[in-house]
């Protein structure tokens, strides 16, 4: 049960993050932080295919995290999701065409290892 919940937190979470990033890049950089601009942003996001597609993926990941938190320790549940870092970095490099240099690879790997160490 816990293994399946971890899978449901990690994989849909990674796909959701990828869709969120693609959707927000398509929307463009947020420069106006006024209330009206943020309301306009919410309206725009409701018409953004990538953001809409990310909602079910993020919802599955969120509810799986809630279920995982209710049956395991926070010190296990939160750090285990760090295993998605490598998967998301690969997806971002190939699908979002981000330039991932050695500093990002080493940095991301160190973060994933550090988070895993916290769960031991």
């Amino acid at each position: 049960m816990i293994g399946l919940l971890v899978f449901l937190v990690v994989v849909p979470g990674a796909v959701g993050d990828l869709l969120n990033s693609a959707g927000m890049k398509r929307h463009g950089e947020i420069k106006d932080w006024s209330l009206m601009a943020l309301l306009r942003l919410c309206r725009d996001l409701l018409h953004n295919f990538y953001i809409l597609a990310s909602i079910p993926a993020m919802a599955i990941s969120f509810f799986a995290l809630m279920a995982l938190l209710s049956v395991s320790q926070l010190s296990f549940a939160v750090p285990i999701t760090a295993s998605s870092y490598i998967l998301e970095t690969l997806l971002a490099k190939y699908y979002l065409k981000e330039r991932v240099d050695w500093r990002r690879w080493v940095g991301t790997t160190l973060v994933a290892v550090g988070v895993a160490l916290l769960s031991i």
Partner: protein
Amino acid sequence: MHRINAAKLEDELIPPAERRKWHTHLLIGKTAIVSLVVIGTNVVGNYALKRGLAQVGAVESWSPIPYIRSFAHPWVAIGVIFMFGWLTSRLSLLSWADLTYVLPVTSFSYAISAVIGAVYLNEKVSILHWIGISTIVLGILLVVLTYPRTTNGSETDK
């Protein structure tokens, strides 16, 4: 009466190189501030959710109804509000910063959660945990050395 067009005035008065440098600094500063908001809302949200769910009891169901019902608990409600803040601030950050930048940098919340647990909740933090916290900080320092955006042809190293 003449209206002053600020953007046109900026174009005329500030040389392009200076303007690019200014925009780079602005983007880095904005990224730092929004990253801190993402990290803060994540730490508080996770703590509140865990505290609330511990009081609600184990939720094991394939239906979302029991989870939605648990939102009525004050700590769970606070957790959900902060997680909503985390989601919106993270989306804003992703509107200009790379996913491969946002992911590691915002994971500083794990290190903060561990330190808060040690300092305020008297949780036992082993040597291995401190090594983990140091490794996370080292990883973040490496990623922070890169410019937050590498797409849209606007990459400039700090």
